[in-house]
């Protein structure tokens, strides 16, 4: 079930990244939704899930983006695994630590990807540190938001259910 959820999350992230980004504006272009899903999977499900999620997500991103297939797959695999290991070693339940994890994961992903491009890809570009940091900040923010949404969504649904129940009881009393 969790695997299916992760798979759906990956599909959703890629859908948002590729289809809805024009509608979401510049933030959607900057944010790597796939990376957010990978780090989320690693933190919540462990290293194996993190690396598998990262591998699949990265491969799909590579396939859709063109160029050498496997560069993003490899970087996100490593990031997903590292996130999983980090999640098992430390308690990351508060927003700030999560923000830091997402932020560092974004930087690591960017660094690995740049290294892989330098090694395997003939096309190279000058490092854009500001853009990388900005993307890491946005990724972290989205990641924390996703965590909050995922954690608060069941409670929200339950409250709504509880709220509907109370209203029905009052109505019956009246």
């Amino acid at each position: 079930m969790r695997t299916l959820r992760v798979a759906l999350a990956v599909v959703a992230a890629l859908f948002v990244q590729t289809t809805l980004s024009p509608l979401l504006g510049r933030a959607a272009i900057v944010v790597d939704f796939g990376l957010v899903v990978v780090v989320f999977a690693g933190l919540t499900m462990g290293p194996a899930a993190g690396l598998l999620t990262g591998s699949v997500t990265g491969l799909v991103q590579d396939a859709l983006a063109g160029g050498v297939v496997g560069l993003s797959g490899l970087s996100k695999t490593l990031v997903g695994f590292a996130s999983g290991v980090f999640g098992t070693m430390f308690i990351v339940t508060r927003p700030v630590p999560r923000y830091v994890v997402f932020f560092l994961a974004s930087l690591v992903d960017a660094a690995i990807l740049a290294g892989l491009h330098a090694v395997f890809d003939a096309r190279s570009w000058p490092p854009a540190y500001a853009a990388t940091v900005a993307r890491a900040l946005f990724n972290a923010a989205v990641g924390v938001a996703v965590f909050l949404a995922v954690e608060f969504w069941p409670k929200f649904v339950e409250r709504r259910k509880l709220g509907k129940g109370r209203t029905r009881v009052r109505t019956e009393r009246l």
Partner: protein
Amino acid sequence: MTLPDIRQRSGYLLLAVVVGHLILISAQVNSRQGVPLLQGGAFAVYSEVQRLTYAVVDGVVRTWDSYVALRGVRIENQALRRELDTLQVQQQQQQDAVQRSEELRRLLELRDVSGLQTRAAEVIGGSAVPDARFLTIDRGAADGIKVDMAVISPAGVVGRVVAAGRRAAKVQLLVDRNAAAGARAGDARAEGIVLGTGEDTLRLEYVSSTAEVAVDDLVVTAGTDGIYPKGFAIGRIEHIEKAGAAYALIRVRPAVNFSALEEVLVVTSPVPSGREVEQ
């Protein structure tokens, strides 16, 4: 394998996934030589396997070849040794033939120079007893050989014929203790008589005390004995002892190596007598 198992072995899974990605990337990226990295890497690995395989197989083949070749070498070695032995024998025979040819040439030259009538003879035997110094030659009375004929060699005087059979003759060497020859020594031409000692040396006796001889003077035949022609080398003075004014001992080293004689010349022409010589 269930998912929990995979999670427990996430390290191996990570390694497998990373390797898979690297292979995937390598298949798409070309090297500097224009060959995909996967192909180049696979070829590099495969070529090392080939190299290792070739080294092993080549080593086995070489070892086997060496073993087989070693057996062949052994047989060949034996054949070569036999051939070498044969060639060494042939070489010795050829050297012997060359040496004999040279000796014969010198004999012919001697015959031409001396103007004497000679007959070449081959030494076919030695002395029956060690004390007597004799030779046997393969020429005898049937060849005109007579007693008291001088026997010479390119090096000098050998001796004289003391017995002549029909087909062989006995030659008394000059070193025989019963042999003697008239001689002259040195530039002073000091006359004397050379006597055999039975050893490999000669004695020069009856030399006048007034005559001056010295060590290393050449001693030649005087031609006064009626046997040996005049002027043939006998040897060189090796040692001189004097007793007062007279010579006590003059030892002469023979010019001829008597132990190595193979070919000799027998002087068949009459040798002038002493008186004729003096005249």
